[in-house]
C-alpha cells in the first residue's frame, strides 16, 4: 500500500511536470534578420547582405536551424553578385547555405540580459558540410522576442570554394560572417 501511494505521488508529479516541460519547449521562428559577410583583401573589400534568412530555435531542446538562399545576397557591384553566384558559390547547384545544430548550454536567460553561448553543429556552404562551434549572443526582450547575434569566420577552402590565382588580391581566404536575428514564438 505504501509503495502504491508513493507510485501515485510520482504519477501526480509527472503529470504536473508535463505542462512545465511543454512550456519550456517553445519553438521560436526568426521573423526578421540579416546575414552579411565581409571579405578584406589587399585590392578590394567586398561585402554583401541578405534579408532572406530564415531560422528556427527550440529553447527546450536547444536545437537550432538556419537557412539562407545564396542568391539573396545583394552586392554593391552587380557583376560581383553574378560572379559570386556563378563562379564561387555555384548557386544553381547549391541554392542554400544552412546550419543545423544545438546550443551547448541550456537556454535560460533573464529578460533584458544577454547571454553568450556556443552552438555546435553542421555548417553547409557550397554543398560542403563542416562541423563547427559558433558563438552566439542571445537576449530575451521584454516583448517576448529573442534577439540573436553571431559573428564567425568562414575559410573558403573549408567549403571547397576556390579562388583563381589572379583573384588572390581581390578576395580574402577567410570571410567574416555576421548574423542578426530577431525571433518570436512560433504560432
Amino acid at each position, binding site marked *: 500500500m505504501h509503495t502504491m501511494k508513493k507510485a501515485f505521488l510520482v504519477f501526480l508529479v509527472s503529470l504536473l511536470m*508535463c505542462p512545465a516541460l511543454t512550456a519550456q519547449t517553445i519553438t521560436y521562428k526568426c521573423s526578421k534578420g540579416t546575414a552579411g559577410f565581409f571579405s578584406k583583401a589587399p585590392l578590394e573589400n567586398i561585402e554583401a547582405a541578405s534579408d532572406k534568412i530564415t531560422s528556427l530555435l527550440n529553447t527546450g531542446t536547444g536545437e537550432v*536551424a538556419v537557412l539562407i538562399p545564396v542568391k539573396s545576397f545583394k552586392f554593391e*557591384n552587380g*557583376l560581383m553578385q553574378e*560572379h559570386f553566384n556563378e*563562379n564561387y558559390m555555384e548557386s544553381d547547384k547549391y541554392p542554400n547555405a544552412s546550419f543545423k545544430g544545438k546550443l551547448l548550454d541550456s537556454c535560460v536567460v533573464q529578460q533584458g540580459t544577454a547571454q553568450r553561448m556556443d552552438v555546435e553543429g553542421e555548417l553547409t556552404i557550397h554543398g560542403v558540410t563542416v562541423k563547427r562551434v559558433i558563438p552566439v549572443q542571445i537576449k530575451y526582450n521584454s516583448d517576448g522576442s529573442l534577439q540573436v547575434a553571431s559573428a564567425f569566420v568562414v575559410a573558403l577552402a573549408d567549403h571547397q570554394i576556390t579562388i583563381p590565382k589572379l583573384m588572390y588580391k581581390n578576395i580574402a581566404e577567410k570571410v567574416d560572417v555576421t548574423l542578426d536575428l530577431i525571433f518570436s514564438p512560433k504560432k
Partner: protein
Amino acid sequence: MKQFNIISIIGLWILVPLTIHAQGDLLSELEEDAAAEAVSDITMATFKSTRIINTQSVELIPASHLDFRISHRFGQINSGAYNFWGLDQATIRLGLEYGLWDRINIGVGRSSFQKVYDGYFKLKILRQQTGARTIPVSLVWFSNMSLTTLKTGNQYIEDHFYTRLAYAHQLLIARKFSQGLSLQVAPVLVHYNYVSADRENNLYAVAFGGRAKVSKRISVNLDYIYRIDPIRDNGYYNSLSVGIDIETGGHVFQLHATNSQGMIEEYFVGQTTGRWQDGDIYIGFNISRLFSFAGKRTRRG
C-alpha cells in the same frame, strides 16, 4: 493495480519526451517552408557580357552601373607580313554604357572606323525565369542610331546631314538552356537614310548567337548574321564571328576572329566586306570594365 500505475508512469515518461521530439528536424522544416514559398528564380548570366561578339546579347548592365567598353579590331590577317598580318592596323570603338534601371540601358560610342558616333537604347521586356512564374526566354528590345562623320568628298552627302544617319532595331530572344549552353536569335532591321542607287534603304537580317562554357570562367562564343538581302553580289557578306570570353573579376575579356570590321549594327550587319574564305579576317578583342554607382542601397529587382 500497482502494476498498472507503474506502467502508466513509465508510459508517460516515455511519451512526454517523444512528443517533444516529434517536432522533427528544424532544418528540414525550414527547407520545406522555403520550397513552399513561391519565388521566381530569374536566370542569371545567359551571357557573360552585353555583347556576344559583335551582336548585342540579352544581358543588360545593372541599375546605376557604368560600363566602359573598349572594342578593338586589328587589320586583315591576309594583309601579309609587311602589315604583320593585320596587327599594324587597328580600329577601335570606345563606349560608355549606363544602367538607368536594371531593365533599361542607354549607351554612346565612337568608332574610329568611318568616324562614327552611335547612341543606343536597350529594354529588357522579359526575363527568363522559373518558380512562381515560368518564362522560357529572355526578350530584349534594342534600337540605335548612328552618325557617320567620315569626309566623303561627295558634295551631296557633305551638304545633307540626314544622309549620315542610320538606324538599327532588333528584338533579341535568348534562352539559357543549361549552365553551359545559351542560344540567341534576333530579327534585325537596319535603315540607312542614304544609300547608293543600286541598294535598298531597309535591310532585314536574322542574327544567331550562342555561347558554350568550357570552364567556370571561359566560354566559347559564336555569332552569325544572315542578311535577307534582295540584291546579290553587292560586295557585302554575312558576318561570322567566333571567340572566347574570359572573366577576370571586374572585367570580361572577349577575344575573337571576325570578317566584320565595323563594331556597330549599321556596319557589321549590313556592310561586312570581308570573306572568311578569302582570309579577310580581323582579330579583335573587347574589354569591359564595370563601375558601380549603386552605393549600398539594395538593387531594384
